[in-house]
């Protein structure tokens, strides 16, 4: 796992989880990883009937503020899975 500099203060895993859970209705998110690389499993009834692209876009939309710029705390999402409960 590579290391990426960031000016972000705080726990990135919690920030990711809270961003996803607050912006996608009835969503639970499991986030693992570190060093700028994270894996996310998001579960919400909102994903029902949506394509993988649409579902992943919802998650990326929720966390875009954590992925923007060279000093972003999230360098890469190594794995993103969206599920319906």
């Amino acid at each position, binding site marked *: 796992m590579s290391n990426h500099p960031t000016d972000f203060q705080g726990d990135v895993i919690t920030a990711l989880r809270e961003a996803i859970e607050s912006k996608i209705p009835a969503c639970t998110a499991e986030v693992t990883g570190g060093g700028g690389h994270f894996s996310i499993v998001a579960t919400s009834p909102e994903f029902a009937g949506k394509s*993988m*692209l649409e579902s*992943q*876009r919802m998650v*990326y*939309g929720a*966390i*875009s503020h954590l*992925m*923007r710029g060279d000093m972003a705390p999230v360098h*890469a*999402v190594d*794995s*993103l899975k969206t599920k319906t409960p």
Partner: protein
Amino acid sequence: MPLPEPLRKQISELVTTHRVVLFMKGNRRAPQCGFSAQVVQILDELGPAYETVDVLSSPALRDGIKEFSEWPTIPQLYVGGRFVGGCDIVREMHAGGELQKLLGVTVAEPKTPAITLSPAAAKAFEDARAEAGGDPLRLSVGPAFQYELFFGPREPGDLEVESAGIEVLVDRGSATRADGLRIDYVEGPNGGFKIDNPNEPPRVRQLSAGELATMLGEGKIELFDVRPESERAIAKIAAARALDAAGQAHLAALDRQAPIAVHCHHGVRSQAAAEHLVREGFKTVYNLKGGIDAWSLSVDPSVPRY
């Protein structure tokens, strides 16, 4: 961050001028990131003509494409002017056969591969499956023969194989590469699942000093020392043959199927030599990981370190 109009226009032209466009880090010959490399491998395998755009060449483009697609990561694949997805989505669509349809490549309907599990492997899977919660066993073989063996849910398009009473699911993208594959399970410290795949091109395999000592003891392998005489004068492994004129002649006369191992001081020069032997046609070539130094540390401390 609004996308400047000239840049929007430039991207829009790129994705409409070419039918298949991959925005990536690096280029198809030298991808600069693992995710970009995976998508390149998949596109190369399917073989449609495609354009690549190196986002590392322009910070404005790198940020711009993320805004344009409303997608925060690279790579990004466009087909017919429409955004398809990033690495995950491309991989999944490839495995399920949807990507082939989208690109209009006719891929022969993959035949269900023949896969053989040894009784030991079947038992190990049986035991592990109980702990894993009952999902079926899945096997995927990547374009560069990266193996993934795990318990996971059924996916559309899966091919089902049964061996030794165990059901194995193989995604369509892996099917051709998995045909004829055998899985064994070996107990012990160097044990685990062993995959033998006849489709895999020969490549250099790494051996620890301990594994090499065992194989030499069983008379299963010939060992060659690629170091010059000046280094051999300092330290040598008794079983290793120098690659001097006599050693070269001996090597040249060996059956290309015969297992051979090479070593040097730390394992770097011998890796290069081993890759050369593979190109020469040797099918089973091992490199001693860590070289004679590792041998001295973990097998024979009477061999001087230098």
